[in-house]
């Protein structure tokens, strides 16, 4: 039993601090890293502790700076890059996808690129079309990148240390609405291995797969479902690449039903990949068609009036579970969620009644 409680953001901070302490080749850079706010607290005070040579700000030049990080790997460094919004890293797609992802392979394994790129995903308070995208499926599509998206403070610390210590490029997603949740976090160095999903709750009626913030929404739905007597097995992916699907397949073979919750958009998204994998490997076990609960194929609207209809909620997950169980059927029409109202909570601010631990 771990008594110490930390916020997710504090767990991230601690992981970086431990890695900077443990390995002289590790350094941290990113816009705003040493400023007084310190990337929502995740890098605060680290420059004072570790020095300006190892913790520093950079020019607003994400593409070049990703190349600089890569180049430093070739002479033995182990950089951590931080992007306050995922979208800023999109200007560096050449360096991430063409170069970092392929460098080890295309040179026959001679060089390695132990580069960790933190990307923060915004949501709420009008973050809008260019501050809130969860593009994990893009990066998972590129061979050579590892893709990590924790949902708890414990995993945030253990997975970030594992990512930094990994000898490959890792894209590490942090949902902003996770930064303030708290949970048990051990002191000192520990790792959570990349590739192993976590069974959050066991259940025999339906399998719900999620990752990052979507896991919290799934947990909320699961609690509601339990009151109805429906036991959901919730699986937190933790990492998209690498990924061991054994737990998901075993779960679906037990439940026969699958709902995948994805904080990215629907088409070409990661939920489809999980559904495809399960359908290929365990088709015979399925008792109903799997359902994806994802963002609609629409840019994020800024006004809270529309974001209330944009983000899937636990109600959507519950509706999906009901459908897989044959309790309701889809009404038809273009909108699979017709009739589901967001309720009285506005969806552009975090749910304060639900901050952990989980």
């Amino acid at each position, binding site marked *: 039993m771990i008594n110490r409680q930390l916020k997710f953001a504090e767990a991230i901070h601690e992981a970086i601090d431990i890695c900077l302490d443990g390995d002289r080749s590790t350094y941290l850079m990113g816009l705003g890293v040493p400023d007084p706010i310190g990337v929502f607290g995740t890098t605060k005070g680290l420059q004072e502790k570790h020095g300006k*040579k190892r913790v520093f700000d950079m020019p607003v*030049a994400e*593409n070049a*700076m990703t190349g*600089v990080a*890569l180049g430093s790997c070739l002479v033995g460094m182990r950089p951590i890059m931080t992007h306050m919004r995922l979208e800023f890293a999109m200007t560096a797609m*050449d360096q991430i996808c063409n170069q970092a992802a392929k460098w080890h392979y295309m*040179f026959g394994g001679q060089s390695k690129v132990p580069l960790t790129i933190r990307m923060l995903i915004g949501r709420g308070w009008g973050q809008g079309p260019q501050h809130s995208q969860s593009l994990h499926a893009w990066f998972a599509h590129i061979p050579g990148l590892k893709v990590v998206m924790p949902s708890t403070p414990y995993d945030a610390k253990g997975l970030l240390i594992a990512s930094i210590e990994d000898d490959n490029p890792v894209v590490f997603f942090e949902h902003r609405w996770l930064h303030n949740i708290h949970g048990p976090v051990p002191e000192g160095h520990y790792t959570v291995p990349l590739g192993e999903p976590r069974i959050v709750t066991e259940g025999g009626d339906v399998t719900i797969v999620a990752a990052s913030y979507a896991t919290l929404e799934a947990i909320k739905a699961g609690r509601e479902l339990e009151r109805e007597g429906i036991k959901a097995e919730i699986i937190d992916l933790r990492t998209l690449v690498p990924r061991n699907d054994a737990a998901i397949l075993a779960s679906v073979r037990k439940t026969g039903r699958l709902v995948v919750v994805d904080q990215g958009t629907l088409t070409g998204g990661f939920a489809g990949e999980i559904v495809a994998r399960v359908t290929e490997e365990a088709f015979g076990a399925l008792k109903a068609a799997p359902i994806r609960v994802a963002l609609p194929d629409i840019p994020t609207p800024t006004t809270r009036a529309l974001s209330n209809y944009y983000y899937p909620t636990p109600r959507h997950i519950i509706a999906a579970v009901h459908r897989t169980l044959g309790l309701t059927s889809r009404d038809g029409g273009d909108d699979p969620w017709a009739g589901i109202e967001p309720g009285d909570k506005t969806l552009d601010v975090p749910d304060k009644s639900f901050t952990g631990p989980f």
Partner: protein
Amino acid sequence: MPQESRLALYRSMLKIRRVEERIQALYPEGDMRCPTHFSIGQEAVAAGVCKNLRLEDHVISAHRSHAHYIGKGGNLRAMFAELYGKVDGCASGKGGSMHLIDLSVNFLGCVPIVGSTIPIGVGAAFGAMLQDHAAITVIFFGDAATETGVFHESVNFAAVHRLPVLFVCENNLYSVNTPLDVRQPGNRTIAELARGHGIETSQHDGQLVETVDAAVVDALAHIRNEGGPALLEFITYRWLEHCGPLGDLHLGYRTQAEFDSWATRCPLRLYRKVLEDNRLIDDAAHAAMDAKVAEEIDDAVAFARASPFPERSELSRHMFA
């Protein structure tokens, strides 16, 4: 310059020329199956730059990289094996002509996305600086790379941190088949453009290998003594098509007259004349030098042809370190 240095400069250019001529001769057989960009006509830059580098200095390059690899002392057997897609290639056959690497001489690699290696080279210099290594990094690129945003981002960062980087722009006047004057304004040079970043820059004739050599000596002295990066722009000319072993005058994007004027300024012919005038080489000595180069190339080609292709298990190998 000492006699042996002058001969070494010429030998380096001759080796680059002869290797590429051999590739040119063998390429039509269809066994080197990768896009291949020749530097014939541009040898003086690679030879003049690399002569002044130490083993620990890093070099990184782009798609037209054979000359830089050879100039830095890259393994010739591994290079030919790479072109043939063999397992003994410098990148196990997974890279090809556009992805040469030889870490034993600190040739860090090359990639064909124009501009992409510039920040990576800057990063190598940055990493060396963080570790207090004295290595200098040389980044070779063409004129078109200076049109990319990442070039300017990279030079800016190198200038901010006063990194030990020598940017070498081989301005061969064309990007694929597109001339410079539709891509960049005529009222400033690339060297002048880069000077705006607050670094030392200069433009030189890229056909005269001793001119290249002298410019590099000065630039490296600046980098080592004053600290901070420098950029050298060399005006040169590509003889063959952008990609592949053939001529391309039939396409009409450049004139025969233009080509002829550059052909008379062949860097090897110009320098051989200098060496002959100074009685450093005669026909017999040249033939002996040529024969020795040919022997090395014969050996490399034979090695590459005899090398096996990678086995199936190689497909998924090297996915992750």
